[in-house]
């Protein structure tokens, strides 16, 4: 019975992230439009777009290979699995131990790997430019992320996300190192999701685009999967920030249905706050030049390293 309930909770989490991810995108878009005094499309619009895309015929470039056709499924699956392993409303779900924080980051890395390859498959210069820049961003963002992982897991003594969240709930206090890690994680999250000021998700046909350039040739269901994966990635980063730094209201896996409902409400609220902050930040910031991005990410890396060193120093005193 308990096992059934646990598996059910895990299944609910998988479907929950899937359902919420496009809504989050829609919410951010709506808010951005309102901030610019436009009316904006309804929040459900991304879902409508996805459904429309799924029904459309795919137009494949003439020399697209099998890799190009597999990649969307793989990318989507990897990011979906990663997103379902991050605690959202409850910690310690049945399969949460199958991958720790490092493995989740690496899963995102795998998805990036295949996306960048898919970008190069058709052999157009737009695809190449996107892949090349994505590889550069990745090679700076990933180490920064690892430094954040180091900091958090030195503090909590574990790399299991559920355990980290439990530790953070039990030991609520302000730590300079964790604060620095939070700032670093925000920087990484912005870069990894291709948001302003690193990349503009609304852009098209610009030489500065990165993510859009890689997926330029995709259409129909493949495009839908990649868009959904991108939405899931944004949701994942917000869940990660919420679960590690603001674990208020997170239910334990054996807390029963009522605590889980509270956890769910808290989670949706946290997502709304995160999305609101993102929309506000994006409307007040300008996009930066592509070669300023390494400086931006370098700042994240340095902050992460400082946080790690700080933990090392303070722990042994």
């Amino acid at each position, binding site marked *: 019975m308990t096992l059934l309930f646990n598996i059910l909770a895990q299944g609910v989490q998988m479907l929950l992230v899937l359902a919420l991810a496009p809504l989050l995108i829609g919410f951010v878009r709506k808010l951005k439009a309102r901030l610019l005094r436009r009316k904006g499309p309804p929040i459900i619009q991304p879902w409508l777009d996805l459904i429309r895309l*799924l*029904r459309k*015929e*795919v*137009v*494949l*470039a*003439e*020399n697209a*290979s*099998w*890799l190009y056709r597999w990649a969307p*499924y793989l990318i*989507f*699956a*990897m990011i*979906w*699995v990663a997103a379902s392993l991050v605690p959202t409303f409850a910690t310690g779900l049945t399969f949460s*131990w*199958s991958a720790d924080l*490092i*493995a989740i980051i*690496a*899963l995102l*890395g*795998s998805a990036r*790997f295949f996306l*960048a*390859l898919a*970008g*190069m498959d*058709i*052999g*157009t*210069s*737009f695809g*190449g430019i996107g*892949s*090349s820049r994505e*590889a550069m961003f*990745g*090679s*700076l963002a*990933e*180490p920064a992320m690892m*430094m954040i992982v180091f900091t958090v*897991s*030195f503090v909590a003594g*574990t*790399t*299991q996300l559920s*355990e980290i969240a439990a530790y953070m709930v039990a030991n609520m206090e302000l730590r300079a190192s964790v604060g620095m890690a939070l700032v670093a994680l925000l920087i990484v999250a912005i870069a990894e999701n291709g948001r302003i000021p690193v990349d503009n998700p609304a852009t098209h046909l610009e030489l500065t685009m990165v993510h859009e350039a890689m997926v330029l*040739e995709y259409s*129909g*269901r493949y495009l*839908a999967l990649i868009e959904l994966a991108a939405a899931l990635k944004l949701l994942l980063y917000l869940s990660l920030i919420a679960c590690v730094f603001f674990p208020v209201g997170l239910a334990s896996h054996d807390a029963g249905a009522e605590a889980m409902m509270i956890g769910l409400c808290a989670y949706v609220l946290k997502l709304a706050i995160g999305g609101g902050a993102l929309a506000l930040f994006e409307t007040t910031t300008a996009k930066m030049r*592509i*070669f300023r991005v390494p400086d931006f990410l370098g700042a994240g890396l340095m902050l992460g390293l400082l946080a790690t060193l700080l933990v*090392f120093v303070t722990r*042994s005193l």
Partner: protein
Amino acid sequence: MPLYLALTCVSALLAVSVYAIVDRRNHDVSRNVYRLCIGLCGVLFLAAVMPRGAHVVSTALPLGLPWIGMHFRIDVLTAFFLAVVNLGGAAASAYAIGYGAHEKEPMRVLPFYPAFLAGMNLVVLADDAFTFLVAWEFMSLTSWALVLTHHHEEENRRAGFVYLLMASFGGFALLMAFGVLGGVAGAYDFASIRESTKEGWKTGLVLALALVGMGSKAGLAPLHIWLPLAHPAAPSHVSALMSGVMTKVAIYGFIRVVFDLLGPPAFWWSVEPMTFGAASALIGVLFATIQSDLKKLLAYSTIENIGIIFIALGLALAFKANGMALPAALAFTAALFHVFNHSLFKSLLFFGAGAVLNASGERSIERLGGLIHSMPKTAFLFLGGCVAIAALPPLNGFVSEWLVFQAILLSPSLPQWTVKLLVPAVGVALALSAALGAGCYIRAYGVAFLGRPRSEAARAAHDPDRWSLGTMAVLLTLCLMAGLLPSLLIDMISPVAKDFVGGRMPTQAELSWLSIAPVAESRSSYNGLLVFAFILFSAYSARWVIHKFGTARSRRAPAWDCGYIETSPMTQYTASSFAQPIRRTLGVIAFSVRDRLDMPAPGDTRPARLSVDIKDRIFDYLYAPLTRAVESCAAGLNILSLLTIQEYLALVFAALVFLLVLVAI
């Protein structure tokens, strides 16, 4: 029994060398030699994994120096490396049955190839300094001969020269190391060395010499300069052996000397392996990222991986010195796990590169492209190798890097400040090299295999023969197995860790669902099998849902590309343009790189030119002054060759007196 079996196989390998010379007129000689090598490597592999009866088996044969003889021994460490060497050896031989048929001058490969295999096995089996050094030099010389297979090319001759120079330098350092270890009394068998007491200065000296000697063979920066020249120069199956296996023999030597012969470690021993390991990881991956020669790229990435192994070994030393058995076992296991992994995927990638080279005649990825259409099977297998080496789940490269990270995460409990502050820096280097490594393989695969063919040769390429494909498929399967079922491998390594660092990781087979948890499940765990199953399940269910409720129709049309019509495949992104962002952001620190744009004035009709100068700082600031110093010394000593006979006699007499005085004191 397994020891005698192993030694018999080694002598049989030497006999195969002789056979290759005797039977050189035969058309089938190449095929026969490689078949025999597969068989012998297979038996050696069995000798490594079969139950030994005793924990350690050793023997002394009355060969070599009189009264000393040659000592051989198999213990857990030897058995592990024997397995790695012969797995790689068997794979390379199987690949070569197909690949070797294209060799234009087979007699430059066949006699040396079995001898090279025998040499590597002998290094691992040796149990005294004399045997070890003889086997080591034998291995160096046979591999040198293999590097010179295509000696008509100027570049290869230079590679052979640099390799010989560095190998003799490394061998010299090892000679000194064993000299210091054996002491004045001259007890050179490993058993006596193990029991002798070592003073503080001696251990420091031996550690440095071992690091130089073994590191120069393994490709540890800054002694790596020969590696990217020599490894690619050899035929591809030999490149695979040199990169995938011979570097591991050097790692074996380092472990044998530092973890075994030198006795209980002090904490500062860990500083050198970690520092140089981190430097190698970064230098290796940065140079790999800007290379456009596929085999050179793989060679540079070997340097990166060797760096990762040395980082893990350094961590193991630090933990062992502080009596922290469990973390030491974790770091040590991570190192050996990576040794095994790297031997698998590096061989796989070199085989793939060999297949590409054979099919298209091109080593530069700038003139390839679109191979996924012309060589679909190779493309799939090479992709698997890229995913594995880029440390991406669910393949095996990720597992070993994950273990290294877990070891790093245990380091705050180390008491010494030096190590404590060094470890986070090493951690950044490791994370950076892992991320850059992924980028490097995106570039290598994307430019060579994806897109449109940039040359006629790339368009006309075709998959290699069954032997080559089969070998690559077996290696990829092994990579996948090691990635999905790491617990089995960790449990196999744990007896080695117990003997060499005095602790073992918790038995992984007892955990549910075949997951791995290095310390405790509440601390960290990873389950490759489950993650892989989840990914497959999610991908297939997504596909099913879409095909059921959406549509499965698709249509082919010209590429969209924002409406531009690109006619020439040369307008694709090239390898150097792909590397440009990384060259520009990180290149300035790592290698002095300068982009120069020569833009003609308006109205001028000459073409604009962009040239990129890349300089290896290590070469400029370390080796170039060294070469100059050696040359000026040689010029200074030149007068000695023009003396009269009386002067020579006087010189000899003076030297004799000086040495006698030295001995008397």
